[in-house]
């Protein structure tokens, strides 16, 4: 093989290796890109992660929206978790408070985190929480049970096509992870 070709090969390989490294980086870049994309388009059903200030909306009494509440546990976490109401009919613009109940079923202290999700996903940006147990990790003493309020409002700008909104919470047992920290 002449030196000329082997020099050409080396240059080409260098370029291709750079492509490989860039694509590895691109894989990781997809993580923040995904969050930004979901944020802009609002398609992921994520609600506000910190408390919003309570501002007064004009109450829209022309229509009622059904809000359903669902509770779930991740990997059968040892928690009793339920919603006081299965569903509630609400007027857009009016504030409501509903209660959830969670109980640590172990004899040890527990750190747990509830993650909310709204469906249909595109309705999430009109569902505003001013108070929620999901804004931070919850600590439970051994066998402790807690009633936890959620205060929310539906933005009257919610498009007419949405008649029912489902708010689902999944509780994750984070005890092990927080011990490590």
């Amino acid at each position, binding site marked *: *093989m002449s030196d000329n*070709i082997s020099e*050409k*090969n080396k240059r*080409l*390989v260098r370029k*291709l*290796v750079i*492509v*490989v*490294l860039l*694509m*590895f980086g*691109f*894989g*990781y870049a*997809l*993580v923040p890109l*995904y969050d930004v994309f979901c944020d802009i*388009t609002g*398609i*992921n*059903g994520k609600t506000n992660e910190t408390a919003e200030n309570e501002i007064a909306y004009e109450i829209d009494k022309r229509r009622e929206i059904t809000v359903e509440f669902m509770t779930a546990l*991740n*990997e059968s976490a040892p928690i009793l978790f339920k919603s006081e109401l299965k569903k509630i009919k609400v007027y857009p613009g009016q504030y409501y408070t509903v209660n959830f109940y969670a109980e640590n079923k172990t004899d040890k202290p527990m750190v747990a*985190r509830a*993650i909310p999700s709204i*469906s249909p*996903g*595109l309705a999430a940006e009109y569902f505003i929480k001013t108070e929620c147990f999901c804004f931070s990790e919850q600590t439970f003493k051994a066998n402790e049970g807690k009633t936890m309020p959620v205060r929310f409002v539906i933005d009257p700008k919610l498009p007419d096509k949405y008649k029912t909104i489902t708010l689902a919470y*999944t509780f*994750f047992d*984070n005890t092990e*992870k927080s011990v*490590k*920290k």
Partner: protein
Amino acid sequence: MSAVAAENEHTHDHDDHGPAKGIMRWIVTTNHKDIGTMYLIFALIMFFVGGTMALIIRAELFEPGMQFVDPQFFNSMTTMHALVMVFGAVMPAFVGFANWMIPMMIGAPDMALPRMNNMSFWMLVAGILLIASTLFMEGGAPAAGWTFYPPLVLQTGNALPFAVFAVHLLGISSIMGAINIIATILNMRAPKMTLMKMPLFVWTWLITAFLLIAIMPVFAGAVTMLLTDRFFDTSFFDAAGGGDPVLYQHIFWFFGHPEVYVMILPTFGLASTIIPVFARKPLFGYSSMVYATGAIAFLSFIVWAHHMFTVGMPISGELYFMYATMLIAIPTGVKVFNWTATMWKGAMTFETPMLFAIAFVVLFTMGGFTGLMMAIAPVDFQYHDTYFIVAHFHYTLVPASVFILMAGGYFWLPKWVGNMYDEKLARLHFWLSAISVNILFFPQHFLGLAGMPRRIPDYAVQFSDWNMISSIGAFIFGFSQLMFVYIVIKTVRGKDCEKATDEVWEDAHKHGLEWTLPSPVPYHTFATPPEKIPTEHL
């Protein structure tokens, strides 16, 4: 002194070097033909390992109820079968053909980076051994499906880190192989072999190699995220820490969809190389074939979420991915049309490679059509994760990729070893394969449409009949493949075999440079680039 001796050594003509003797020849070889042979033998062994796993699956599914294996092991089998077949059999087999044929097809003396070539082969072996070792671990082999979806995959036992590192090794191996192929094709062509005169097998591999270097690093990144999620408390895919499991599916299928084309594009290239020889006509629409391949490769990057229609995408997303996916049918249709048009009014003969190639055109088209059915988002909600998808991708992989690999084997084996294979036995192998593969996979369409989910060890009784038929087909198909091994060994030994002529197939020298070489091919070829290149394939 020694420097002088080495100098003298180098002034010799390279052609009279034979291969080194003994086992070290294979371990340290940098010869593209040796490495190609090793890839092909390795792929064939893995084809039987993966096939055995498939037969365990089909044996369990022969009747409803639990028969032979427990559900955890059954799930390990579906997962390992896929990993072994994709990364151990089909991909290495095509790399084997690339190693053997690309230098000979473009008039180069060897691959551009022979040592890296050796290294990529042995890393492949290491990767496969690593993943195979998980079968004997506490907690069993990975059982969450070859797609490794979290959170389920994070419940894998000790096998998870081994599976992740195996993916890294396999990824590095394919990336090195791909870089080598690109460098060979771009820098090592004979002066008169311009890009638009290259045989289509070379073209499709060039494009495939670019796909590989674009996607394998992304997959390596995704499994690394799984690893850190499990062991280092990151939360890429853990909702409790602000991550999202659906994100994994997006990253995976950004890799996964081009990956399935990594397995089918060289198939297209091989078919386009074989069919003209036996139709005794130039390939119809050479340049449209090249552009169609490029178009398919490009589209493969922008359709990934059609694997995820049911995760809860907004309607606009479903529509986009639906239409983009259907677009792929156009370049693919161009290809099927061209193969058919190549055969049209050709002086066709039906030797075994051609039989496999024709079966490929017919059966791949069926697999393509079921793909088109599933591209329709609302319909996919019913087909998703049922046996319908299993039938679909097996039609595009077994009677397509695997059949074409068999065709390639029969096509070039006489050139490689200098002996003709036993045509009668080979045809029997073909007919057994072609009939049994349909008995095996066709009923799975019905099962899927009737609602039988995939990846389950037991099923409702109404699925019994078609499962039984499918399993019978599986066993006939599996055992027929042993004939291939027998035929290959017989041909290599050469006892009672006809000697192959230099052109092997009538007028093949008009179709490709490799047929201008003597049979069997010498250990070193094209030390000086060829003067004339055949243009019949244009």
